[in-house]
């Protein structure tokens, strides 16, 4: 396994680590999609990369407390997940945007975000302002009173991000948030991500390497349910050579790391 840990600058403030997983195993159906993962993440924006089927979505679902770990140890925001622990206080601090997120089509954007704020047990007095702030941050102010079913794909995605951030979560988990965003929106989204990373641990799963390069302070590379590499985007880029497939240094580094890992595993 190749590993470059640059965790000093990601050092946590209050929790030790926001995410602390040891030998984590999570089942997706019958398959052990996360299989012995060690991962420690603190404040900042972390890009989660990996080929299809690497276990990214399963990992995010486990971190969002949708799936229970099948083995190993998982600590989120200083609380151990699994067993009989009450997830309620932990869930108040989590923001989550699933890959294929469901919503009530009849609700307006504002109602949807407000409803999610209520479900996250926010202080009722803070909700209206927080809702407005979240909607503004994703650039949906003009469409706040449109029904969800009338939104385009990209706007829907932004509404999803708005609900994820409405409670100012300490742990923000975004699964493919940039799908469907137009180029201008993606640029704005990167700024938003960097912003959010100032106060929280943000884990973004994506296929778009440019997003990672532009917005993430840290890259987490997964394959076959395991951690392959963790480091800064520059670290990733440094791994790639001219012979590796890719349009830019980070993509070439990504390819090189995967090839290297697979060669090691299959020997």
């Amino acid at each position, binding site marked *: 396994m190749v590993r470059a840990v640059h965790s000093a600058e990601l050092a946590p403030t209050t929790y030790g680590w926001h995410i602390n997983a040891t030998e984590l195993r999570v089942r997706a159906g019958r398959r052990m999609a996360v299989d012995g993962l060690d991962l420690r993440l603190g404040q900042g924006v972390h890009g989660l990369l990996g080929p299809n089927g690497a276990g990214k979505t399963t990992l995010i679902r486990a971190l969002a407390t949708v799936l229970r770990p099948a083995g190993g140890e998982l600590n989120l925001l200083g609380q151990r997940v699994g067993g009989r622990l009450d997830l309620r206080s932990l869930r108040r601090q989590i923001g989550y*945007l699933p890959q294929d997120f469901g919503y009530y089509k009849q609700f307006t954007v504002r109602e949807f975000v407000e409803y999610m704020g209520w479900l996250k047990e926010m202080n009722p007095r803070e909700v209206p302002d927080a809702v407005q702030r979240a909607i503004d941050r994703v650039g949906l102010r003009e469409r706040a009173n449109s029904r969800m079913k009338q939104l385009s794909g990209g706007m829907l995605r932004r509404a999803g991000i708005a609900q994820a951030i409405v409670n100012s979560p300490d742990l923000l988990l975004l699964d493919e948030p940039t799908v469907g965003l137009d180029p201008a929106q993606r640029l704005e989204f990167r700024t938003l991500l960097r912003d959010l990373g100032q106060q929280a641990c943000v884990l973004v799963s994506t296929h778009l390497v440019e997003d990672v390069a532009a917005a993430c302070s840290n890259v987490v590379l997964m394959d076959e349910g395991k951690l392959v590499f963790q480091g800064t985007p520059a670290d990733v880029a440094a791994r790639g050579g001219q012979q590796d497939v890719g349009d830019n240094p980070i993509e070439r580094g990504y390819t090189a790391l995967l090839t290297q890992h697979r060669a090691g595993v299959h020997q």
Partner: protein
Amino acid sequence: MTGRVLRIELRRSSAWPTGLVIALLGIAGLLSLVPTNQDGLWDAQWTLLASFQRIMLVVLWPLTLGAGAWQARRDRRSKAEELLGTTARPSWRRVLPTAFAMALCLVVGYVLIFAVGAVNVAGTTDYFSSNWLPVALVGALSLVAAGWLGLGVGRLVPSVYTPPVLVVLGFLVLLVPIQLSKGDAPGPESLLGPGFTTTVREFQMIAPAVDLGQFVWFFGLALGGLLLALFGRRIASVTAVVPVVLALIVALPIFSAAPAGGVQADPAASAEVCTHDGGPTVCVTASHGQDLATLVGPARQALAALGKLPNPPSSVHEVPDDRPGPQPADQVWFDAANHTAGQGWDAKSGAELAAKILAGAGTKPCDQGNSMDRLTYEVRPIVAAWLIGQYPAPGMAVEDPDENAERTALWQALAALPKAAQAQRVAAVRQAGLACGDVGAALSGGH
């Protein structure tokens, strides 16, 4: 904040469309009887409206079950289960506003139906009592119970097929007591349905024991449905059985305190409203109080005509079917069935009305409507004609030639007698009518 969420649910969930559909169907059900002139089934009396609305629950109740089950599937239908599952608030708290929005809209829908019917009832009768209130209250509660039960079953079995299957099950369950009631007298368990299997008539009301028992039963059912909705597929939902069983245990003995079918006489509706103007007393039932004025003239004409007889009666009383006899000799009893809700007395003119009062020489037939024997049925208009002095009496001509021939024969036999004997025979008819004796024999001079 919960208030804001409730508002969102009221505006965006399927609660208000459900309430609207229930209201529209109910109103359509009421109005569908107007073209056939059967609206007397519900607009004669406030209690009648409330209980007719209950009868319509046979349709509305199963549909509400289905609506609840449809609403329950919203999370799955929207594929929002994963996202909502990761929030701090427990799922039962999420269901609560949905359930209350549904209940509120169902109650409003139910009240709307009543309000539309109330416009007609208010124009039909001046009689007002609060008997209808518990009946309507139980109806609205039963609708809430259906909505919550549907919500609960929908959460328990979140399949696309749950709503339609539940609706059909509801219809089957409600149809069974109706089928049963066509045979023997319905048992107390038939009162567990939201509707009534017996029709309530104008001078009747739902027994208070039935209202109470049904309130307890539907309260328990609603609570059970709500618990089921709150806990869904978790083991705690077993607790839903408790209030339902408890309500059943409490309600059934209460029902047995009421008469079979759950209907009893409404003494206030049949209480008398009388003239106090110094003239001969004329009384109608409280339910028909607004039509007293049109009865007074013909009633006094009838009393004057009866003055030809020895010991003539001195007052006229409209009486409902269930007024216990015997009829006092100094009274004229006029059957309340001669009144149609919203239209008044069943007579085209005062003379016709007077003739009706004089049928049977001012006696009310002892046998009810259909079972009256043919001879009594023919004798009654003959004496009316004699008292008025005109054959046939106004409004009493018959078209059937055979019947007409029989009547004319009776009339001619009477008219052929000496004057004093005629009066004697008519007086005998009155005596027979008062005593529930053989009216035909009295007219022919036999015994």
